[in-house]
């Protein structure tokens, strides 16, 4: 699921920037083709999400969605920059997921009007471009932060292992996602392969 998002986002970002930045627009050209790729990637992304949902582990997905939705006292404290034990997803990760999801909807909404407005002036919403732009600026910032924490920042970059290999180091999980380790240990009989010991 995460890699569907990543792949689609990168293609949309690359094509989008080539449409937006004059230097890239001149170097890459092929504007009509880029627009087509941009729009169809967005549509393919939506379809891929649907497929993952239909064909994948729906219960796990819904469980994750519920996790993202719920912010308890520890989450709220964490957001106020206090130390507080976190679950499988920390409050920042939940926020990122929520913002990304909301932006995806807004991108699609404004993007629809940009695409159709060009073909039929009745669909041209004057502010669609401006909103699409600003979504992009904020998304780019979020994405750079996301990359920094996932790839560069020593304290958090181990999380990438969870995304690529499907497991994380137990000691690291205790330090960063203690409530998740506790929950997993409670269900010790039903081994969750997501945590691996260091021994």
């Amino acid at each position, binding site marked *: 699921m995460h890699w569907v998002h990543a792949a689609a986002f990168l293609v949309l970002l690359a094509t989008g920037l080539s449409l*937006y930045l*004059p*230097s890239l627009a*001149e170097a890459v050209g092929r*504007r009509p083709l880029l627009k087509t790729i941009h729009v169809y990637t967005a549509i393919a992304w939506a379809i891929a999400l649907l497929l993952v949902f239909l064909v994948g582990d729906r219960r796990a997905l819904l469980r994750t969605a519920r996790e993202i939705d719920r912010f308890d006292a520890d989450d709220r404290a964490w957001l106020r920059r206090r130390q507080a034990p976190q*679950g499988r997803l920390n409050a920042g990760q*939940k*926020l990122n997921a929520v913002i990304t999801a909301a932006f995806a909807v807004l991108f699609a909404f404004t993007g629809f009007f940009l695409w159709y407005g060009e073909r039929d002036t009745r669909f041209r919403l004057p502010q669609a471009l401006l*909103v699409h732009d600003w979504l992009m600026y904020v998304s780019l910032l979020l994405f750079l932060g996301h990359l920094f924490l996932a790839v560069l920042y020593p304290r958090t970059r181990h999380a990438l292992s969870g995304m690529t290999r499907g497991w994380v180091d137990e000691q690291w999980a205790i330090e960063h996602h203690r409530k998740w380790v506790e929950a997993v240990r409670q269900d010790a009989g039903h081994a969750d392969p997501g945590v691996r010991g260091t021994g």
Partner: protein
Amino acid sequence: MTDDSRPYGRRAFLALVAGGVSSLWWANPASRVLSPLTSGVSQLAGNLFPVGGWRIYTISGSMPIFDPSQWRLQIDGLVRRPVSLTYDELRALPRAHQVSNFHCVTGWSVDGVRWAGIRLQQLLRLVDPLPSAHAIRFVSAEEPYDDSLTLEQALLPNVMLALEMDGQPLSRPHGAPARIVIPEMYGYKGVKWLARMELVAKQPTGYWEGLGYDQNAWVGRSNGYSS
């Protein structure tokens, strides 16, 4: 999960989506307030980001390349003396200068653009239009882009065939070597990479007009805008 958890996730999601959709109404005023900051940032980023707010639109796979040795501007149609001007001949004509604002129909603008070029009267004088000519069709080297103006519109004071922008010869993204500038209308009327001016009896349907955009593209008074 403890009992004190609150559904912030879905609330934040809904608030963002609602805020985002509503921003279609307040985005423009907000952007006017923020624009000194954003254009400051643009300038810091130099040529990487759209400096000063320009976006480059094309309708084909690649932008025309200007070859001064081959390039000609055809001016023909309902005229007594059709001409084919070289770039040097064009540059030798009396030059006009202006500072005007550029507005795109999609909703962005660039203020205070310095243009230098030739007033259309100068070009029409060379070819001596017939009485039956009432409009000019502008054909771009970027096919199949074209657009048109009535003679009356073409002779408005701020209309020109621009050769320079902000003190430099037009760059390739901006329509090198020559583009039409008509500040009172949206940018799509200002044909870039101009290759030919054809004097005609009646304005034809241009590229964007064929997609439903207004022929008389007055800024703020056309294409669904009213200000």
